[in-house]
C-alpha cells in the first residue's frame, strides 16, 4: 500500500526523522490556513500524488512542474492554484496522469549536499537492506548502473536489528563528519525503527540533505507498506487514498479478486496467479493484447465469477474475453455453471472463449455446450488463446 509524501513525513516525524516543516491544503481557501503555519520566506509547493517524477511532470492544462520553488508565501499560494484540481502526468503515472487533490507546502531548505537513502527487503538474503549513496536527487538505478562505487548497502540481521557499528560504517562511507555525522546517525537509526515498526515494504528518501548549519533532513519521502501486515496497523490503513487507485481494482478487492488493469483488448479471467500471468503472456504470444490480470483464486465461486465479469466489462477497451480455469480440486461443472449464470446475468455480447481443464471436466464442458450461449470452447491454453485472438481481430 502506498501513501502520500506528506503522510510519510508525518510518520517520519513520529519516529524522530527530521523533515522540513510543512502543511497541507485541499482547497484554495486552505492554502491560506496552511501557509499561515509556515514562516515567511522561500517555500516549496508540492503536488501530492502516488507517483514519482512529479518535479519533471506536466499538467494536462500545459502547466509544467508538479513541484515548485517559490521565493515567498504569496508566490506559493498563487503557484498552488496552478496545480490543485489539475491532472499531473509524470513518467510513472502513464498518459492518463493523476488528479492533484492535495497540495503540500514546506519550508524550502537550504541545501549543502544531497544524498540517497532507502530501506527495503533484500530478497536474496531475506533481510532488510539499507541502500545509501552520495549521489542524491537522481534516479538510484542510474547510480547503480553508472557509478556503483557510490552505492553502499548494509544488510541487517533481524535477530539483532541495526547495529551501531553498521550505522558508523555507513556514516564514514557517506563522508559525514562532526555534527552532520551525529545527526545522520540518529536519522538512520530512527528511519530503520520506522521501517521495522510500521511493517514498511520500502522507505525511500531522495534526496536526504545536509544544510549549511549541520542539520540532516529527509527532503522527500516515499513509503509503501506490506499489504499482508496491514491487519495490525489500522493507523496506516486509515491513510489509504482511494482516489489514487483504479476503481476497478478497488471493486475487485471487495470480492477477493486480484485484478490489475492493462491497456489491451482481450480480458482474461483465470484461477491462480501464475496461470493468470501466463494467460496474459500467451495472448500476446499469439498476437493479441491482454486487457488485464485477473486471478479469481483457487475456488472461483459463482459470486466471484459474476463480479469478475462485471469488472472486466467495466473496461471499455475490452473486445473479447478468455476464461482459463484449471479446476484442480474444484469441480469443473460447478465452475461452468457459475460461468453460464454470470454470462446470462451480465448479458454478455462480446466473444467469449472458455478453456476448462481438470476435475469433472467432461460435465463442465457439457454444461457450457447445453447453455445455448454463444461461447467457444478451447482445449488447451494455446488453442483457447489462438481462438480469442482470432475472434477479436
Amino acid at each position: 500500500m502506498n501513501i502520500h509524501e506528506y503522510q510519510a513525513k508525518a510518520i517520519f516525524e513520529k519516529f524522530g526523522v527530521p523533515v522540513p516543516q510543512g502543511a497541507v491544503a485541499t482547497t484554495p481557501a486552505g492554502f491560506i490556513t496552511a501557509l499561515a503555519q509556515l514562516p515567511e520566506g522561500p517555500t516549496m509547493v508540492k503536488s501530492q500524488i502516488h507517483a514519482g517524477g512529479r518535479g519533471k511532470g506536466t499538467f494536462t492544462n500545459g502547466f509544467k512542474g508538479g513541484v515548485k520553488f517559490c521565493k515567498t508565501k504569496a508566490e506559493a499560494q498563487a503557484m498552488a492554484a496552478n496545480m490543485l484540481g489539475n491532472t499531473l502526468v509524470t513518467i510513472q503515472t502513464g498518459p492518463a496522469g493523476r488528479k492533484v487533490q492535495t497540495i503540500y507546502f514546506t519550508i524550502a531548505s537550504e541545501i549543502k549536499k544531497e544524498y540517497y537513502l532507502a530501506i527495503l527487503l533484500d530478497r536474496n538474503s531475506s533481510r532488510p537492506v539499507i541502500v545509501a549513496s552520495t549521489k542524491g536527487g537522481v534516479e538510484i538505478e542510474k547510480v547503480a548502473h553508472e557509478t556503483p562505487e557510490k552505492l553502499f548497502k548494509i544488510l541487517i540481521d533481524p535477530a539483532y536489528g541495526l547495529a551501531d557499528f553498521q550505522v558508523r560504517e555507513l556514516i564514514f562511507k557517506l563522508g559525514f563528519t562532526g555534527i552532520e555525522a551525529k545527526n545522520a546517525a540518529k536519522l538512520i537509526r530512527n528511519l530503520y525503527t520506522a521501517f521495522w515498526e510500521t511493517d514498511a515494504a520500502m522507505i525511500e528518501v531522495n534526496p536526504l540533505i545536509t544544510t549549511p548549519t549541520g542539520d540532516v533532513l529527509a527532503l522527500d519521502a516515499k513509503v509503501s507498506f506490506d499489504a499482508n501486515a496491514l491487519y495490525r496497523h489500522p493507523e496506516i490503513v486509515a491513510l489509504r487514498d482511494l482516489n489514487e487507485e483504479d476503481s476497478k481494482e478497488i471493486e475487485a478487492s471487495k470480492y477477493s479478486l486480484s485484478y490489475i488493469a492493462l491497456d489491451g483488448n482481450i480480458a482474461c479471467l483465470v484461477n491462480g496467479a501464475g496461470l493468470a500471468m501466463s494467460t496474459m503472456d500467451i495472448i500476446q504470444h499469439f498476437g493479441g493484447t491482454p486487457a488485464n490480470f485477473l486471478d479469481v483464486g483457487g475456488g472461483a465461486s459463482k459470486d466471484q465469477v459474476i463480479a469478475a465479469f462485471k469488472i472486466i466489462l467495466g473496461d471499455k477497451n475490452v473486445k473479447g474475453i478468455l476464461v482459463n480455469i484449471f479446476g484442480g480440486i474444484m469441480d469443473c461443472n460447478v465452475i461452468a455453471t457459475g460461468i453460464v449464470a454470470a454470462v446470462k446475468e451480465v448479458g454478455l455480447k462480446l466473444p467469449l472463449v472458455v478453456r476448462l481443464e481438470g476435475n469433472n471436466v467432461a460435465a463442465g464442458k457439457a454444461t457450457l455446450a447445453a447453455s445455448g450461449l454463444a461461447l467457444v470452447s478451447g482445449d488447451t491454453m494455446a488453442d483457447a488463446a489462438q481462438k480469442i485472438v482470432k475472434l477479436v481481430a
Partner: protein
Amino acid sequence: MSILITPQTKIIVQGITGDFGGRHAKLSLDYGTQVVAGVTPGKGGQFFEHGTHKVPIFNSVADAAQATSASVSVIFVPPPYAADAILECVAAGLDLAVAITEGIPIKDMIRVKRAMQGTKTRLLGPNCPGLVTPGTGKDSSGGCRIGIAPGYIHKQGHVGVVSRSGTLTYEAVFQLTSKNIGQTTCVGIGGDPVNGTNHLDVIKLFNADPETHGIILIGEIGGNAEVEAARWIKANCTKPVAGFIAGATAPAGRRMGHAGAIVGGAEDTAAAKIAVFKECGIEVAVTPSDMADALLRSAKAKGVTLT
C-alpha cells in the same frame, strides 16, 4: 524414489479443525497419505474423523510428533498465527514444515527464516500448494500428498517439477500425465518474496535423485531465484531441464497476484530470466502449453528416456 517425502512419510496437519485444513486433510487421506496427527491448541484429545480414518488431535506439534513419530507438518493456520506455527515445527525438531498459508507478513517471515538458520527443519512455502510424491494406485493414489494440489492429475514416474505457482504446476503435471510421463515429486515453493526452500534447493535434490530423469523448472518475474538455479544447472546438472517463466506481459512495479511477483529492475523481468535459461542450456517452453513438450525436446536431445 522421490525427494523430500515418500508414501511412507507420516504427516501432521496444523489447523486440521479449520475448514481449509480439514478439507485438504480429507483429500490427503483419500489419496492414501499417512496423515497421522492433527494439531489445534485446546482440542487435544479429540479426533478428526473421515470415513474409516480417526486421526488424533494434539495441543502442540511436539506432542503430536512424540506420539506418532511424524517428521513433517503442513500448516493451514491463518496468517497472523502462521509464523508461530512454523517456529513450533522447528522447536519440535521436524524435518519439514510445509506452509500453505497465504498472506503472512513479510517481517514475520524475515524473523522466522533467521530463527531457522542452523536448525534441522526445512521450510517449504509459505503461500505454496505443497508437494506430491505420486503413488502407484488408481489416479496415482497411495502416494504422499501434502498441501492443496489435486492428487489425481499425477502419475508415478521420473520427472521432477518445481514451481512458484500452484496452478502452473498443475498445468505442467497434467500435460506430463496426459503424455503418459510420470513424476517423482512435484514441489510448489510458493509465491512469496521470503520463502524457505527455493528453486535451487529443489533442483539440487532432483539432480541427486537417481529416479528423477528430467526436470521442469517453472518461475515467474521478480527476484533472482530462477537465475541462480539456472546457473547451477549449467555447471552441475546433466539431466534434461525444461523451463518456463510467467509474466512477460506484466507491467513493471505491479504485484501480479503473488506477493513476490513484481518486476524490480532490468534483471528480474521474464525476458531477462528466459535469456539466462537459454544461455544455461535449459529448453524454454514457448507457451505454458509447451512445458511437457519442451522437456521431451530436451530429453530427446540428450538421449534420455523419461518414461
